């Protein structure tokens, strides 16, 4: 009989403990969501406000903290697009594209070749070259910038896009070589060895066997280079001096320095347009990364 009472008590206790634990978990979950939501709102509100403000009139922008425009207008976009220069923002977007496209293509090709060389071959000096790759990851650009400028000046490349393009053809961004190297290491060599046995040379192996497997990684390299170049300001600032060659980053800086500075909605509207490509590409990149990694997992 007393055994039965004890038993019932034990069950009751256990149930109470479980309930307490459950409540604690619920509270913890609620706290987590609250923090995440508040921090998320604080983080994103500036961007939300920016988008809203770009549709406001100038007098409304600095009249309240809300993001919804009272009387939405496309004025900022229409007039901002015209700019105070002889060129429209379309020209500056086109210039940006002219910088980005070759740079991205060069980067993908050169970094893939170099990563392949590092991942699949032994050769004299490989270790020290590899160490130098890591060292350049950490080397602050500020140290090399001035002689690079003098070099490009002597080559007559100032006020062209060549200083922005050419280093990328030489695997200038060590980070991307590294990224591809990590992907390559995860890919087994069986297929490549089979191709070699069948008489393919190393270049054919690269093109027909390695590259198809590496495509997701190469796409993410391209997308990252795209976003970095889109944001790059110091490079064009140093090397590009004619307004007709300005990319959007310089054009935007120019617009806040000129009389346009009081036309807030124009500048905010052009800021939105400047951020738009990166945002779009980011959401694409996210998808590609998930796919790339899972595809690598299946093949690996």
């Amino acid at each position, binding site marked *: 009989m007393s055994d039965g009472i004890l038993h019932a008590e034990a069950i009751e206790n256990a149930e109470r403990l479980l309930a307490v634990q459950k409540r604690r978990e619920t509270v913890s979950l609620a706290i987590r969501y609250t923090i995440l939501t508040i921090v998320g709102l604080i983080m994103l509100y500036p961007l939300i406000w920016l988008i809203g403000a770009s549709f406001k009139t100038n007098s409304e922008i600095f009249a309240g903290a809300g993001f919804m425009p009272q009387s939405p207008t496309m004025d900022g976009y229409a007039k901002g697009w015209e700019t105070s220069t002889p060129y429209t923002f379309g020209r500056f977007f086109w210039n940006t594209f002219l910088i980005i496209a070759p740079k991205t293509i060069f980067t993908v090709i050169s970094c893939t070749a170099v990563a392949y060389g590092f991942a699949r071959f032994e050769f004299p000096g490989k*270790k020290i070259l590899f160490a130098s790759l890591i060292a350049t990851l950490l080397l602050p650009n500020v140290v090399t910038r001035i002689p690079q400028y003098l070099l490009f000046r002597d080559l007559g490349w100032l006020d062209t896009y060549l200083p922005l393009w050419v280093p990328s053809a030489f695997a200038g961004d060590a980070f991307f070589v590294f990224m591809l190297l990590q992907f390559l290491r995860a890919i087994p060599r069986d297929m490549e060895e089979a191709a070699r046995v069948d008489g393919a040379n190393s270049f054919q192996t690269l093109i027909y066997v390695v590259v198809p497997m590496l495509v997701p990684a190469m796409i993410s390299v391209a997308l990252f280079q795209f976003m970095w170049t889109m944001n790059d300001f110091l490079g064009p600032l140093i090397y590009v001096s004619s307004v007709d060659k300005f990319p959007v980053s310089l054009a935007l800086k120019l617009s806040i320095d000129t009389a346009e500075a009081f036309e807030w909605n124009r500048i905010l509207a052009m800021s939105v347009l400047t951020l738009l490509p990166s945002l779009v590409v980011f959401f694409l990149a996210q998808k590609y990364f998930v796919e790339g990694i899972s595809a690598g997992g299946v093949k690996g």
Partner: protein
Amino acid sequence: MPSFPGGGKHVRAISNELHPCLFGWLLGLCAGQLERGFCMSGDGRLLGFWYVLPYLLGLLIFTAIPFLGSLYLSFTDYRLMQGANYIGLENYTDILTSDRTFNRSFSVTMIYVLITVPLKLAFALFIAGILNSKLKGIGFFRTAYYVPSILGGSIAVAVLWRYMFADTGLINMMLTGIGFESVNWFGNPGTALFTITLLRLWQFGSAMVIFLAALQSIDKSLYEAAAIDGAKPWRAFFAITLPLLTPVIFFNLIMQMVQAFQEFNGPYVITQGGPLKSTYLLPLYIYEVAFKKFEMGYASAIAWVLFAVIMVLTLIAFWSSKHWVYYAGDKRS
């Protein structure tokens, strides 16, 4: 260092390799490694070398030679359009003894780095810790927090910051809305530095994504074992999570530091270095001396002082890492 969703695996691999490789390299083991490299190729095959050749050429032309070139320039009075005269250590003695702008700029830079880097890492780790549980919508939050890192370097965001902190900007309107007085953000040194510091902290997402990937790779059975042994959650955090995260913390620390020392866009656009040079970070100073005044010898010397500071701090991090960075299943000395 930008990161990418799901890319933590690779970044961690870099951090694992970075550690021994660079350390060896920096300590002057170059000679030994070169020799070993040459001995390794018994069959004398140079095939791989051809694939790496673009990198080697780029390294020489765009990195190594400019690197030494700027060291040489730093000992000259080189100005654009004028010849360079060797003046020994004069630039360096000027910088360290009589250049008040450098003094100001240097201390502002140190304050900026010492505030932003630890705060950014701590915040990134904190949010990653919250995200690292069975939450619904984790992907959504991760994306939301990562977006500022993607856009943060853009001039457009710097422009946005300028309007947000303007006298009647968003921040002041919010402050007055809840009964505070508005602040003249760009008018006094402390608050001006605060605005550019905040811009960097806002971009904690990239570090967070790396932390999150590392947290998710920690073996859950470790926590179960700890719980069975009666360890409280905070004890498990300090005994399991933190030690296993140290390689990633180390990696983020180095990368964030090197980046923070090179911040340019924010102060250039938002505050133009002012007021009273309170946001005049060293990269701004170097840019103006080199590309506005065209005193390239002097600018190179400042760049080398900055480089030396970064190098010393990196070395301290590497040396100290022996005592606090834990490599699982690894017996590296």
